[in-house]
């Protein structure tokens, strides 16, 4: 209900994190997306994750391209700077921003139209550069803002609202991300808060290129029978690899109206992160190894052929190398450098002399 302002009142029992902030402090403007849109659940999950990690909201930079998903940065982290750029080009803008200030946390939000079609090139190159970021694709297999055309992630054989079947092969962004060198790759489902929130938290903690493919059904154009990106289809075909536990997950299972997936816990594995933190993995697919990129690709192919949608933490490199390491830049953010970096007149005289 987009015309209603958000009430400013805070319930006195709202929990406060280490920064003294409540979850409300991580929210943004009221969403203008369709009621029940999967993207709003992802926005809520981002709010939860940032709150849980005690991140100062203003130290996060939110960047997006164009499309329904790219509108969402307005709806979370209201005190953070945001940049709604051009279609398919968020990765380059984010890369430049990351060059300028390595101290901020970069959260790129994109959609399947934005990343898998017009922006496929930039998607590929920001991952191979190892930009320290969380890149979320809110994947609904359809162009929403232009009213229902198939996107490049729509599965072959999936039907549109009029019953027309998609004839072309789909692009698997998770597989591409693995191939291109993303050092953290996960997939989740907007209707699965229990899995999604800790996955976003882990991605935010990862010091390298983290990619999350989040299936996010479009309630208006792609939630019908015959669609492979509908709530029902994803619920029925989801194969959960694992669920992450985080240290501070007290608020994880707040009852919500959205559809929430439930599953049994399996064995536990601790994944030591580069920054010293530990991810605790509740493994549901016991034989699956999150460190093995080749096996991950093979597994995704195999389950994909069976029509299953594998979710969870798919791959993590515990020793990621980020873009700044490759560029050899100083720890100080480049945007803080001022007149002191000018070589000055004496150095210029030497240059002049070398050109005589």
């Amino acid at each position, binding site marked *: 209900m987009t015309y209603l302002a958000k009430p400013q009142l805070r319930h006195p029992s709202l929990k406060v994190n280490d920064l003294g902030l409540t979850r409300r402090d991580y929210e943004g403007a009221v969403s203008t997306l369709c009621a029940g849109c999967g993207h709003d659940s992802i926005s809520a999950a981002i709010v939860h994750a940032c709150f849980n990690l005690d991140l100062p909201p203003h130290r996060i930079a939110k960047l997006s391209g164009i499309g329904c998903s790219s509108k969402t940065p307005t709806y979370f982290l209201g005190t953070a700077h945001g940049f709604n750029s051009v279609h398919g080009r968020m990765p380059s803008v984010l890369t*430049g*921003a990351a060059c300028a200030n390595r101290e901020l946390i970069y959260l790129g939000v994109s959609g399947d139209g934005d990343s898998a079609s017009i922006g496929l090139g930039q998607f590929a190159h920001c991952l191979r550069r190892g930009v320290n970021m969380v890149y979320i694709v809110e994947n609904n297999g359809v162009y929403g803002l232009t009213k229902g055309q198939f996107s490049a992630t729509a599965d072959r054989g999936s039907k549109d609202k009029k019953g027309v079947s998609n004839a072309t092969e789909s692009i698997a962004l998770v597989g591409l991300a693995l191939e291109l060198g993303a050092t953290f790759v996960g997939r989740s489902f907007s209707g699965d808060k229990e899995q999604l929130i800790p996955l976003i938290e882990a991605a935010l903690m990862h010091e390298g290129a983290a990619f999350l493919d989040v299936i996010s059904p479009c309630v208006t154009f792609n939630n019908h029978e015959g669609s492979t990106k509908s709530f029902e289809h994803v619920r029925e075909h989801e194969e959960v690899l694992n669920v992450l536990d985080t240290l501070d997950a007290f608020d994880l299972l707040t009852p919500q109206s959205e559809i929430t997936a439930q599953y049994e816990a399996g064995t536990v594995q601790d994944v030591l992160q580069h920054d010293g933190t530990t991810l605790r993995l509740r493994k549901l697919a016991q034989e699956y190894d999150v460190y093995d990129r080749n096996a991950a690709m093979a597994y995704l192919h195999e389950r994909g052929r069976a029509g299953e949608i594998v979710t969870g933490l798919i791959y993590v490199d515990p020793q990621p190398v980020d873009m700044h390491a490759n560029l050899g830049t100083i720890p100080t953010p480049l945007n803080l450098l001022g007149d002191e970096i000018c070589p000055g007149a004496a150095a210029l005289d030497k240059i*002049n002399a070398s050109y005589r």
Partner: protein
Amino acid sequence: MPHALERTNDFVVKFANINGSGSASANRLFARTILRMGVPCTPRNIFPSNIQGLPTWYEVRLSDAGYLGARGGAEFVVALNPQSFDQDAASVDPGGYFFFDSSKYVAQSRLRNDVIALPMPLTEICNAQWSEARHRQIFRNVLYVGALAALFDMDLAEAEKLVEEDFRGKAKLIASNVAALRLGNQWARDHFLCPIGLQVKRSTEVGDRIFIDGNTASALGAVWGGATVCAWYPITPSTSIPEMFSRYASKLRVDLETGKNRFAVVQAEDELASIGMVIGAAWNGARTFTATSGPGISLMQEFLGLAYFAEIPAVIFNVQRAGPSTGMPTRTQQSDVLACAYASHGDTKHVLLFPEDPKECFDLGADAFDLADRLQTPVFVLLDLDMGMNERLCDPFTWDDARRYDRGKVVTYEELEAGKAFGRYLDVDGDGITYRTYPGTHPTKGSFFTRGTSRDRYAKYTEDGAAYVDNMERLLKKFETAKKYLPKPIRKDSPTPTRNAAVFYGSTSAAMWEAIDVLAEKGIFLDGLRVRAFPFQDEVVEFVREHDQVFLVEQNRDGQLRSLFLIEHGLSPSKLQSVVHYDGSPITARFIANAIAAKLAPVQVKS
């Protein structure tokens, strides 16, 4: 036989070579030897879009009078490419000299009887002297430099000194190059009547000037101008700007303690990404630039509109080449003026700077970063291939150590904390320029959403027509404000009062000032105005209004700067006459003088 031409320190030598044969460095050695003798000279490399095997020419113009533009014609031609031999023979001015490799038989019929033939069996000499194929090829080039030094009565010691400087620490290379120089020199003395009518005499005209190309100068401008992020994609003729930026930043911008870089250079996947990175970095408060050429500008259009509308500083060096499409990628033009001035869809206008030589590439290159930050908009520095890739004699670069970077209107944490009101698109000062904050400045104040969609003065999304118009009108006001920050035009009036004038910009400048002198000798007088920026300041428009007839001299087909005058200032089209040269070669003084004289001829007859 005609009378052989006799000139001292005022002639053109043209080398015809095959690219990839190592001739470029030998030809450069020839030009630099002349400069070391204190004689101003200007080399121009005319090369194909190819790495090895196609014809390439290198023209060296000597001018004690200091004319650095292309002149046209050649008194002396060095023909070393069998593919272009006949064409090269035909290009010698009557009474000039034709130097060629006579190792293979050349029929007398292929030589002209109105020029002096200077045959030298270069290949034969090399084959006798060196056994390795690579040496034979390389030293053939050095050999002719030695021979030319004898013919022109040049000081061979200056060439030898340059060889020593270039190969410092490599004694073997020095010795072999010096030996080749001396061998060629001696051979010429033994077989030709040295010196010939064309001679190089020591001069003091070079003074303390430096010899550098515009791309390197632009890169240095970016280093001194405080650029910290460079994102780029390789494209001729701009590639050496980011490469030289990397090289100099690696020397001058490295943290001494840690060895870490105080800059970042990212080679992007294409020009869309390079301008995207520039916009992202600038949004985040870094000084940042890209360098490209026409095709890159075409690709950047959408992003440039975003930067204009969202008001993000960006510096774009555009080293123009002949378009449209791939055009002639290694030939020069000034044909992106309109593409840059109105880049992107919707109503846009952009700030353009027009340097004339490497000195201005440095100055305006550095200034561009202040201008972009001050005006919060893209700023284009428009070079061209002729200026960017050729070394040119220019005044040494200077820097005022008291100068401080102008970072424009940026609200700080302290100001926000002190309660300073902030609206990202709120025109507080009435100059159309609003305040911005860098991301991450303050926990609760000063954040805003940057977008290419319409918004109100507080950066809140709106589709309200009045708010949209309000913003677009403010952008116009800002464009007006820009004029006072931009470099003023350079005006030079004829000593004899005249109602005629010439307006020009960029690399046309040197040939144009020379053409004005040439025309004055013929009794045709012109006031000259060199435009250095767009939008045009009042004095530019006034200058046009003051004159009856104004020739707009440019290196494109359609008279693009002329179009800007017509569009922006409604000046009479009949008053503004186009003089255009766009075949991909640098415009020459002879061409300009002839074209203007021809246009004025009927008028002169009438009066």
